[in-house]
């Protein structure tokens, strides 16, 4: 199982704070996970399309679209940060 969490504008567009999902074993990267989520959850697909510039963190560390995801990970998707 993978926990997917959303923040800020992306969270509002998805309409959920988080999803617990179990994608097929072929989903091994962040990019593949996003593609799979978009297929399974149309609201997520639309929210991702509406947020073309995105950042990702795996287990609370910044990561890239081609970073590996594995069972048990927490994957956070969010718009570019605007703190400070």
């Amino acid at each position: 199982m993978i926990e997917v969490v959303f923040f800020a504008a992306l969270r509002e567009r998805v309409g959920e704070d988080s999803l617990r999902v179990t994608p097929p074993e072929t989903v091994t990267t962040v990019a593949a996970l996003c593609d799979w989520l978009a297929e399974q959850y149309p609201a997520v697909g639309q929210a991702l399309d509406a947020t073309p510039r995105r950042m990702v963190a795996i287990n609370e560390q910044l990561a890239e679209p081609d970073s590996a995801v594995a069972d048990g990970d927490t994957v956070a998707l969010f718009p570019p940060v605007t703190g400070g």
Partner: protein
Amino acid sequence: MTRIDVAITAEPLESRLSSEGRDGRSGAEVRFSGRVRDESGQVRALFLEHYPGMTERALRRIGEHARERWPLNAIEMIHRVGEIRVGEEIVRVVVWAGHRQAAFEACAFLMDVLKSQVPLWKKELTDDGWHWVEARERDAEAAARWMAPSSEGAR
């Protein structure tokens, strides 16, 4: 060892004193305070969202990068979250060092990297309602300059 203190708080930063660094080691203290600006006269309030746990870890991590790169005695980073009014302090970064140049550079580095890598998001309230603030290209560029080969030396 360089002390690193980080905090995320929904309370006004104005009421928080920073550690004093009056130990005779630190000749230089550089402090940055960011306040909510009202550029257009239209911002009523700001709301700051964060990623509990990761935000604090990310702050600590950039502090660790700074202390690898400059000779520092202590670092303090406090960021406010929740609703904030115009004029209130949103972030405070304080760096203590033996010499001023290291303190100035590390403090500017921490702010630049904080703005592009630490999970915090601003929402503004104007007469039209709440809007998420867009990330600025300028902030990404400010962070990128610390990664240029000429300014390497971190690890």
